[in-house]
């Protein structure tokens, strides 16, 4: 119905449906999917994210990024008979929001035949996000949720005996993280930036295979491939600084395509090799920590 649809610059046969301003490519649906798979494969290789026989826990939230990641890793791991995928999800206890997302995560796992293991804030920390949001607290809800969700995913990955934990963080997420750390002057986090994750005793190594895929592309992939995903933001979302940085980077990317890649690459150039500043051990849970109490134990009131 569109009069002037350019031909795909990759296969040079089919009409294109997607334009990448940062590379000038125009891609048909099949080539778009193929290019994402190739990019993830290259990223996994570049950071040595997996062993040939890794048991990979994929963190699925029911959102577009994690379901795209699950689909792409499932396709990649078909060529690696000794590697295994298992999905893990966290029920933070956000009534009406997370219920729908978890249902979508379950559906996607069922379709791919991937086992799903579920953990909840209530059972792990004695409090759901609804309860944390309702009580007196010093920090915003996202500060609690981010820290506790990371810990919950680690617990879930351990429970399924995984040696890697893959999360759906995309290029936008990591570029926002780099810029936020610069704006806060957080040298420890700048030093510790590593999409391939650190091997630290006490934690399952966390990897980000989508770190070079822009959010527009995970969104487009999920939509054109008919993935059913959670499409509404969390009702407690209030991360003011991240929202500001996201808006800024999105505007910059429209006017100056490639900005997010530049920020991400800059993060890689200025980081150290020191393991993320983890030097101590938490006195409560025994995991590696920046001081003598880890953030998860601190925020869940165990310290």
């Amino acid at each position: 119905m569109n009069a002037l649809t350019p031909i795909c610059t990759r296969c040079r046969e089919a009409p294109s449906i997607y334009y990448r301003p940062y590379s000038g490519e125009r891609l048909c649906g099949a080539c778009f999917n193929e290019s994402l798979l190739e990019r993830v494969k290259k990223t996994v290789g570049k950071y040595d994210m997996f062993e040939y026989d890794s048991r990979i826990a994929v963190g699925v939230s029911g959102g577009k990024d994690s379901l795209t990641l699950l689909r792409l890793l499932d396709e990649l791991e078909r060529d690696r008979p000794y590697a295994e995928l298992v999905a893990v999800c966290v029920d933070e206890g956000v009534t009406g929001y997370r219920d729908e997302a978890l249902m979508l995560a379950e559906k996607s796992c069922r379709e791919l035949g991937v086992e799903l293991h579920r953990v909840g804030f209530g059972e792990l920390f004695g409090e759901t996000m609804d309860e944390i949001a309702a009580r007196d607290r010093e920090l915003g809800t996202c500060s609690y949720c981010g820290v506790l969700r990371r810990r919950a995913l680690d617990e879930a990955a351990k429970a399924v005996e995984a040696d890697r934990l893959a999360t759906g963080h995309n290029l936008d997420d990591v570029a926002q993280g780099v810029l936020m750390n610069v704006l806060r002057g957080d040298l420890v986090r700048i030093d510790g930036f590593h999409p391939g994750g650190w091997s630290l005793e006490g934690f399952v190594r966390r990897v980000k295979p989508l770190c070079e895929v822009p959010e527009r592309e995970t969104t487009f992939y999920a939509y054109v491939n008919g993935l059913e995903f959670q499409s509404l933001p969390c009702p407690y979302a209030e991360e003011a600084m991240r929202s500001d940085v996201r808006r800024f980077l999105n505007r910059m990317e429209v006017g100056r395509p490639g900005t997010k890649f530049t920020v991400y690459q800059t993060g890689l150039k200025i980081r150290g090799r020191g393991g993320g500043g983890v030097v101590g051990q938490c006195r409560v849970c025994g995991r590696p920590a920046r001081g003598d109490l880890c953030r998860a134990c601190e925020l869940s009131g165990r310290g």
Partner: protein
Amino acid sequence: MSGWSVAVRVEVRLIGVFREAAGSTRLVIEVEEGSRLVDVVDRVVEGVPGLGDVLVDRVVESYAPNALVLVNGVEASNLEGPMTPIGDGSTLVLLPVTHGG
């Protein structure tokens, strides 16, 4: 010349926060023949209170930072971006870039 203007019908599908702001998954609107994508988006924003707040970035006065717009299944920047001609019977999808999860 008679000065007659001809209207074209366009279906607009709304996803995620756009659906929530509009209170509907689908709108059908009529715009003048010869309209471009930017005209259709402007018309939708005018007609749906609250949608502009989540769709349009007021600093750059554009939907581009916040949304992927598909015109008959093709992402709009692969066509002529905001200046893409919109023909009768076209379907637009307004897809937010940032979702929950």
